[in-house]
């Protein structure tokens, strides 16, 4: 029996618009991708993979992340176990500099070219900025790796300081669509997040601005988020999938369906053909080993290797071996700042 191959109109449009001309899909077009039936998913992923290969190349960027300050955050992001406003089992911890340098060395040893220092804060105070400065200097002395930071909302002075210290990339996620944001965060606004993103770009740092999917947003809001991210033109978009954390308002939210997650990967790639699209937290639960492979063959071109901030990831060797199996080389270090 011969399998019937359908020509889905939105995929034909994407082939001409995104693959050939490098123009991302619009919000309305992304809704069409996100609502494709399961039988269309392999074609959508295959197209997203071709887009990634043509516009980004075959290599994969590997990054490690570590929390310099865990827990006790004054913000109320409903997905986050590090908020001090929820009854979460996560306690406050500061990572000392020698441990942080050790983590950077271990990360570099995996072949990673990016090391992101993260703090659970609304924005950094002087103590945290001093710690980060000291950490950056020590890491630069001992480890050959690009340093990124994720320290919440910044002032212009802090943006300038980080850029001056050689911070290569700054992470500040939109997390979700503007229309859904007030249901997820009430202690700061979408506009405040956009403000930090704009300052980071203006200062010449690469902007890493990501998404967290599966928080109860509609497919339309997923498309809205992808379009809003595309409009920001970030260098990198980390894709997280909700891992419901005990004690948070979203602890009873179900785990996102794996096929929906793969559709989202394809859609985000078709929205942003030239952006680094990174696997981030939650993929172990949402996609598992098989889905992880499908995503790498469906538009993903970067991974966070090893563990996350408060949860554990796949073993680093599992991802690195998978990249070898898929014949995808790890991107080599290029100091950009």
């Amino acid at each position, binding site marked *: 029996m011969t399998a019937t191959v359908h020509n889905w109109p939105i995929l034909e449009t994407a082939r001409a618009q995104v693959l050939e001309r490098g123009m991302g899909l619009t919000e309305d077009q992304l809704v069409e991708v996100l609502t494709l039936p399961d039988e269309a998913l392999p074609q959508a992923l295959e197209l997203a993979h071709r887009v990634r290969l043509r516009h980004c190349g075959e290599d994969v960027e590997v990054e490690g992340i*570590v929390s310099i300050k865990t827990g006790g955050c004054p913000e109320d992001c409903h997905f986050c176990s590090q908020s001090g406003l929820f*009854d979460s089992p996560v306690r406050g911890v500061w990572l000392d500099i020698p441990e942080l340098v050790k983590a950077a060395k271990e990360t570099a040893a995996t072949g990673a070219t990016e090391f992101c220092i993260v703090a659970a804060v609304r924005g950094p105070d002087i103590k945290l900025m001093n710690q980060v400065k000291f950490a950056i200097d020590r890491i630069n002395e001992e480890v050959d790796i690009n340093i990124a930071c994720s320290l919440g909302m910044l002032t212009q002075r802090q943006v300038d300081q980080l850029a001056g210290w050689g911070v290569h990339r700054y992470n500040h996620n939109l997390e979700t669509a503007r229309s859904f944001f007030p249901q997820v965060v009430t202690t700061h606004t979408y506009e405040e997040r956009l403000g930090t993103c704009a300052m980071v770009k203006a200062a010449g740092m690469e902007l890493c601005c990501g998404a967290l999917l599966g928080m109860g947003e509609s497919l339309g809001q997923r498309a809205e988020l992808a379009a809003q991210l595309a409009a920001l033109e970030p260098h990198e978009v980390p894709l997280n999938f909700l891992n419901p954390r005990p004690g948070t308002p979203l602890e009873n939210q179900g785990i996102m369906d794996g096929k929906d997650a793969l559709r989202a990967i394809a859609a985000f790639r078709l929205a942003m053909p030239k952006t680094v699209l990174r696997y981030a937290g939650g993929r172990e639960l949402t996609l598992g080993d098989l889905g992880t492979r499908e995503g790498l063959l469906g538009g993903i071109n970067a991974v966070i*290797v*090893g*563990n996350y901030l408060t949860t554990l990831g796949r073993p680093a060797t599992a991802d690195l071996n998978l990249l070898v199996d898929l014949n995808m080389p790890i991107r080599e270090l290029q100091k950009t700042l």
Partner: protein
Amino acid sequence: MSPFPAGASPNAAGPYCGHCGQPREENAREGSPGDASHRRKDADDGGSLPPSSAHLRCASRLHLEPPRFCGHCARRLKVQVTPLGWWAACSRHGVTTYPASEP
């Protein structure tokens, strides 16, 4: 795929679950030495499963996250996750690291 071998949890030998902080066994639920004020009130098995399997779900979660409660006294742990490992510290029972520290 587990990031660490079965049994590597520092709480494997203690009377309390490292994920939810509740007693592991039925006979530990009453008259246990742990201070209830240090344990979560909303353990996610909800007590709905029989004692022998009450923490199967917790055990599966401990393959993707570090312990948050001391297996010996149910106190909340200070936990630091790094890209390739983690450590968990109890104020009474010390620090456990994964991978285990070299002697």
